């Protein structure tokens, strides 16, 4: 039994079903992210856990207690909001100590714990600043300290970094993860940023239309997407329609080329499937290429220099392939219009059901 159990949760707003029969078990001390696009139901789910929305169906258990109908004030959960939600009439110190003050903790104890929190978030010198005197990153640190000072059972974060600059975002997400691990607090994190979710979570739940499309470790989600949606949502991906030639041996045709996969295919021969390959799994043919690798012939259409990597868009038959190469000193840059042979291992070739929207590569 997990520390947080979501059992068949549904939420309807009028005729609109925002969360649909969602179930999830979160272990104590685990960091789980809800990842998905706008309107997928991730924030609504988080708000139901916090108690700001009531589920239309299903139950929420925290530490074996059904909290579905318990008001937010009695759930003992810490929440960090997207727009910080700091009280503008209080200094950082007063904001952090608010939860302790209203629960009647003595002043000396409150001050001591506030000092500890200010130290934890590296903001000792900003304790007497008002929110409007702090930067976005500093405000979010204060919001985090305010949420955890009351020692909540779990921490809920609703897109806490989305309003911040890219540099601050990276720094703060690392800090959030470090604090979470230091305190061992169970955390549910909502984001639409895949990099954010993959970099700090123990597990990622990719959501779509109110359901969890796939849940797994970041590595598993990235390397083994269970559905076309997950494959297309996480990272950049080349995807082609193919036809199964030999399901047992894992052989498919894409256009006029024959591709081999590492495992057998669970779809009957002759059926249509989708073949997914990550751009970083592709390389240009050279002498070191394995003899059993897959090949696709093509012509370089576009070269995008991205600093540490170079992205090539290669035309293969009537399709386009995206390929990433590291910009190492040894790398010999091919020219635009050059005929090349793109190669990739059998393991890089992922087979997905072929019933979704066709496209060539997805960024």
């Amino acid at each position, binding site marked *: 039994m997990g520390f947080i159990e979501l059992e068949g949760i549904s939420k309807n707003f009028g005729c609109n079903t925002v969360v649909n029969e969602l179930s999830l078990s979160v272990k104590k001390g685990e960091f789980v992210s809800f990842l998905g696009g706008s309107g997928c139901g991730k924030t609504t789910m988080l708000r139901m856990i916090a108690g700001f929305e009531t589920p239309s169906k299903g139950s929420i258990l925290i530490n074996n207690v059904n909290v579905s109908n318990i008001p937010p004030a009695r759930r003992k959960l810490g929440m960090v909001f997207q727009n910080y*939600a700091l009280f503008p009439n209080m200094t950082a110190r007063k904001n952090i100590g608010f939860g302790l003050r209203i629960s009647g903790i003595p002043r000396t104890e409150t001050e001591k714990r506030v000092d500890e929190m200010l130290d934890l978030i590296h903001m000792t010198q900003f304790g007497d600043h008002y929110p409007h005197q702090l930067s976005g990153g500093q405000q979010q640190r204060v919001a985090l300290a305010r949420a955890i000072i009351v020692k909540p059972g779990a921490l809920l974060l609703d897109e806490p970094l989305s309003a911040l600059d890219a540099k601050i975002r990276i720094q703060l997400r690392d800090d959030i993860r470090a604090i979470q691990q230091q305190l061992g607090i169970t955390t549910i994190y909502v984001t639409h940023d895949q990099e954010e979710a993959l970099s700090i979570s123990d597990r990622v739940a990719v959501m779509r239309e109110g359901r969890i499309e796939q849940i797994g470790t970041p590595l598993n989600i990235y390397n083994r997407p269970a559905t076309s949606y997950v494959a297309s949502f996480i990272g950049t991906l080349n995807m082609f329609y193919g036809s199964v030639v030999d399901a047992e041996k894992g052989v498919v045709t894409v256009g006029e080329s024959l591709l081999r996969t590492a495992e057998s295919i669970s779809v009957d021969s002759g059926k249509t499937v989708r073949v997914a390959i990550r751009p970083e799994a592709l390389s240009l043919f050279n002498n070191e290429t394995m003899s059993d690798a897959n090949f696709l012939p093509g012509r370089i259409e576009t070269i995008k220099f991205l600093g540490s990597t170079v992205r090539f868009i290669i035309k293969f038959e009537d399709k386009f392939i995206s390929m990433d190469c590291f910009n190492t000193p040894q790398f010999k840059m091919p020219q635009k219009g050059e005929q090349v042979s793109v190669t990739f291992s059998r393991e890089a070739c992922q087979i997905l059901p072929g019933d979704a929207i066709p496209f060539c590569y997805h960024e």
Partner: protein
Amino acid sequence: MPDISAQGRPHTTDAGHISFFRLYAHRIRRQARWLGLAPFFIFLFAFMIIPASSLIVGSFQDNTGALTFDNFIHLLKPNIVSSYLITINLSATTAVLGGLGGLLIAYAISLGGLPQGIRSFVSTFSGVASNFAGVPLAFAFISTLGRAGFITVLLRSIFGIDLYDTGFNLYSFWGLSLTYIYFQIPLMVLIIQPALDGMKKEWREASENLGASAFQYWFHVGIPVLLPSLSAAVILLFGNAFGAYATAYALTGGLINLVPILIGAQIRGNVLHDPNLGYALAFGMIIIMTASIIAYLWLQRLSSRWIK
């Protein structure tokens, strides 16, 4: 062609001419932006600065134009002191009661979860009602709550209640207060609604999440955040009532000794005629109104820093 540079003038190239004209055009454009404000400044100068200046100068003069402080000494006469006190009392009463009524309505339409249509209707009505003052408002109240007013007659004929037997009198302090409240409430709705809209839902949720009750939220967060806006709004209502003349004059005909009516009597010159004393009275009003405006602006600045 004479060599310009040889005549001691700076040598300018074509590019130099172009950049000079560009700079000149840019300056003209920049100055032209101020032209749009010209009517405002003309209006301000003609109808505020000049009359206020002549009023201040006149308050330090006697009938012959000589310098005197007698007008200000006369302000301490019991009837004038009482006039200021009644006006301040009326303004404060209607500002507080109108402010409270307006706050409740604004809260209902901003945070009370009412349908958007009702919000639009109340906002539009408030815009109209807050400007419905003066003689038309006085007659509207006379025709409804006067001795032969519609509601007075209706109450008497249907329920047998004579409003005026209960002590109510439209032409008294409380009758005038009621009439003022009619335009004070909608004005409060219009002023305070943006402040209530600026109250973030997340503040309430964050305090709830930290274990606070509704009372604790309003005590520690809601009221302190709203207080500058509320105070500023009440000060504005105070100023609005303090300067009102036509409504009071049309309704009570000078029965209630208000400062604007007293100023009118001194300047118009029926029985009382001492324009310079009138100017001194008006100068006193200007001081009170200026203090109100300064307090209003300071409080607005404070609240806009919080609710942004």
